[in-house]
């Protein structure tokens, strides 16, 4: 007998491989070297959680995020297919789970039947959404696509480059990158203890899709008259959705494995049959849910009464060019790390607590590592949520039709460390590399009597705060490089009305 290879399971496998490869290619291409341009962060735009949560913080569905409507609408009809068909985080978790299961004997029934702990993801979702209503967007911490994009940008690609090379000219370095790597590994290793640990227990996107698929027309259905209760349908179940009893539709990933595994042909995907079994609703305790929401609402005023980059500007929170004002920025940034991946100089770094707790892993510029490339606007082009608004070169540099160049900060001299100021030495590397025209760094030729009585003529640098755009190349190239003698701070940044110092410019 010829085996039918065009089963739903095989079709799902083809989709999964296709989307996983597409994801890796898209993240890989998010560099200047890749396409001599920029690549659209398609997967971040597909994630409905990003669209829903950023809508709650800012009442807009920003540009590409409308793509997530495809997933939302399709989920209403077909169920929670995203998790096992499209989501790269889900597909990788599944691959890792299968690997671990092959390594040791597994009681598939115990592993894949529903557990009450799966409710946790709904509570996480509730907490994150309530927080979103009140301002800070924190879905980036647990959103699957943001999580995996960040992990690939900050950990996986750099690690690959470390072993194999060829991806970057200079090994990229990331501020606190170890923490991000460990979290990624922990998320994958959790599959050793429970299949699809992340997807079943933590993933707030999965929870949102679970809620959306509360009553899809098409579902997995089990014929109670054909079924012999052998429970073989649990053998490879992705979602842990109890296909052997009343199927929990909200947990079902539509992996289609139960259809293939059923020896009686009792399971099918489609409309209701005469003998179809009942389905179980979302297993959420209403009281818990309200508790969680209230907790989120209580945390909110506490989170407001702390010093953050929003309440008082921080000198070291320098945002990428094109960033919206700090309040809006924290309302939109999902910490996905696309800007960090695309930045050619590695200057964009995941913040730890520089911008306060809510600014964790948001992008800041560390000029010791890189500097903002004058003719580059790549980070503004890849941002999926509009935390960094798309720029043109003209807009960034203040060429017509734009009026003024965009400032991300201003450089200040530390005259106690600057070689010409402190040690009467020739240097002015900062003046050489300053990219504006005319240069924001200028100099005076001075004549000084040295300790030994000889006179020396050399040049001392000054900064013109009206011309400085805060790109930080001066700080990056300063030879006093442990604590550069010229440093950029955020004051004077175009995006802020209040973080200013000069009255007239």
């Amino acid at each position, binding site marked *: 007998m010829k085996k039918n290879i065009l089963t739903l399971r095989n079709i799902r496998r083809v989709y999964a491989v296709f989307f996983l490869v597409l994801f890796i290619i898209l993240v890989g291409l998010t560099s200047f070297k890749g396409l001599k341009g920029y690549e659209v962060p398609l997967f971040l735009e597909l994630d409905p959680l990003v669209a829903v949560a950023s809508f709650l913080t800012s009442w807009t569905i920003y540009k590409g995020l409308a793509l997530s409507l495809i997933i939302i609408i399709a989920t209403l009809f077909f169920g929670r297919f995203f998790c096992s068909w499209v989501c790269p985080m889900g597909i990788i978790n599944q691959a890792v789970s299968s690997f671990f299961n092959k390594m040791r004997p597994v009681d598939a029934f115990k592993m894949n039947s529903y557990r009450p702990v799966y409710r946790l993801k709904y509570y996480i979702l509730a907490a994150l959404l309530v927080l979103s209503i009140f301002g800070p967007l924190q879905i980036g911490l647990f959103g699957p696509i943001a999580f995996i994009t960040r992990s690939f940008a900050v950990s996986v690609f750099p690690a690959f480059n470390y072993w194999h090379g060829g991806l970057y000219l200079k090994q990229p370095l990331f501020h606190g990158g170890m923490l991000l790597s460990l979290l990624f590994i922990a998320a994958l290793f959790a599959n050793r203890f429970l299949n699809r640990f992340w997807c079943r227990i933590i993933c707030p996107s999965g929870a949102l899709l679970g809620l959306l698929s509360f009553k899809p027309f098409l579902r997995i259905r089990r014929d109670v008259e054909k079924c012999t209760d052998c429970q073989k349908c649990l053998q490879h179940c992705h979602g842990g959705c109890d296909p052997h009893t009343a199927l929990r539709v909200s947990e079902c990933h539509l992996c289609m494995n139960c259809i293939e595994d059923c020896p009686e042909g009792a399971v099918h995907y489609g409309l209701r049959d005469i003998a179809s079994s009942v389905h179980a609703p979302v297993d959420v305790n209403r009281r818990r849910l309200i508790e969680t929401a209230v907790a989120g609402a209580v945390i909110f005023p506490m989170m407001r009464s702390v010093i953050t980059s929003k309440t008082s500007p921080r000198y070291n929170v320098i945002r990428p060019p094109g960033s919206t004002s700090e309040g809006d920025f924290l309302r939109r940034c999902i910490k996905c790390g696309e800007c960090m991946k695309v930045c050619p100089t590695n200057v964009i770094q995941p913040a730890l607590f520089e911008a306060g707790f809510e600014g964790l892993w948001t992008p800041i510029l560390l000029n010791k590592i890189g500097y903002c*490339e004058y003719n580059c606007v790549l980070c503004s082009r890849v941002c999926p949520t509009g935390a960094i608004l798309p720029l043109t070169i003209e807009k960034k540099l203040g060429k017509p039709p734009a009026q003024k160049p965009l400032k991300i900060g201003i450089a200040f001299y530390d005259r106690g460390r600057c070689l010409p100021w402190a040690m009467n030495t020739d240097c002015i590397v900062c003046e050489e590399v300053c990219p504006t025209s005319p240069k924001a760094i200028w100099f005076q030729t001075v004549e000084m009597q040295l300790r030994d009585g000889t006179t020396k003529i050399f040049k001392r640098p000054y900064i013109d705060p009206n011309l400085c755009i805060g790109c930080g190349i001066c700080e990056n190239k300063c030879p006093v490089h442990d604590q550069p003698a010229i440093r950029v701070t955020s004051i004077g940044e175009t995006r802020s009305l209040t973080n200013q110092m000069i009255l007239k410019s």
Partner: protein
Amino acid sequence: MPSKHNKKEPELNRRQFLLGTAATCGLAAAAGVWGYIFYSKEPVRRQDTKIYTFKDYRTDDVKTYPQLAVARGKDAGKMVRAAIDRIGGMGRFIKPGDRVLLKPNVAWDRQPEQAANTNPLVVGAVVKLCLEAKAAFVWVTDVPVNDPYRSFARSGIEEAVKKAGGAIKFTAENNFVTTDLKGEALKIWPVSMFYHQVDKVINMPLVKHHSLSKCTMAMKNLYGVLGGQRNRLHQEINTSIADLAAAIRPTLTVMDATRVLKRNGPTGGNLADVSAENTVIAGVDQVAIETYSLRFLDLKAEEVPYILMAEKRGIGISDLKSLNIAEMDV
């Protein structure tokens, strides 16, 4: 009452005893040998890294040709060809099978019109001439100040070189090798290893203003050979440039003065600072070429200390009157 944990150790026979003793003695001996081999008074084992020196890339000096050839015109390709033909043609410098490296100035992420990098048409023309002279390959490299990928792409040099049949060599972190420059200020520095993998080097600078050294041309262009913390070189910029010029003796220098950056160098950025001089100069003597090119920046050799220092070290001649200079319009 006997112990609950009453499993008894099995008896040892003679064979097992001897084998066990031998194994233990073996391990003990291995520990001793390990200590003997690795005993050291140094806290960390250091490996000696190989230290390279530059070879002399010059070919035998032929006196019959003029020292400098200056071509003026509109077509960069024709100017390059005419200037090099006048001093003996590329065949004088490149022998068939030679591995050739071009060192244009590609320091900045700027467009060709902004005259911060060598004109891509001039670079493309030289690549073509080298290949016509049957070079084994032509590599084009630099260690830019800005992002290398952007600098090579934006300067138009990547495209021009690929079109002409050459290859761009980006210098990755592990492409630097320690090299002794044997200078007064510059001793041991990381240097792009491509310089040690070729037979001929052609320096391809352009003429730019520079605040500290007054101008950046052929000898200053050799900064792009170095990696590491080269921002320290500014503290002794004249000595550093002379050191570099003494350490690296290119086969040929082709000076691009098609566009000259007169102010705000070396980055530029404003087209008002760029002046079209439509000139290409070829020669072997870097000091002579630079001295000749000073006219584009309204400078004299006496005002540029490093040129005089280089002359004193015997790198070239700055007295233009004593030289045979062939000028031509193309």
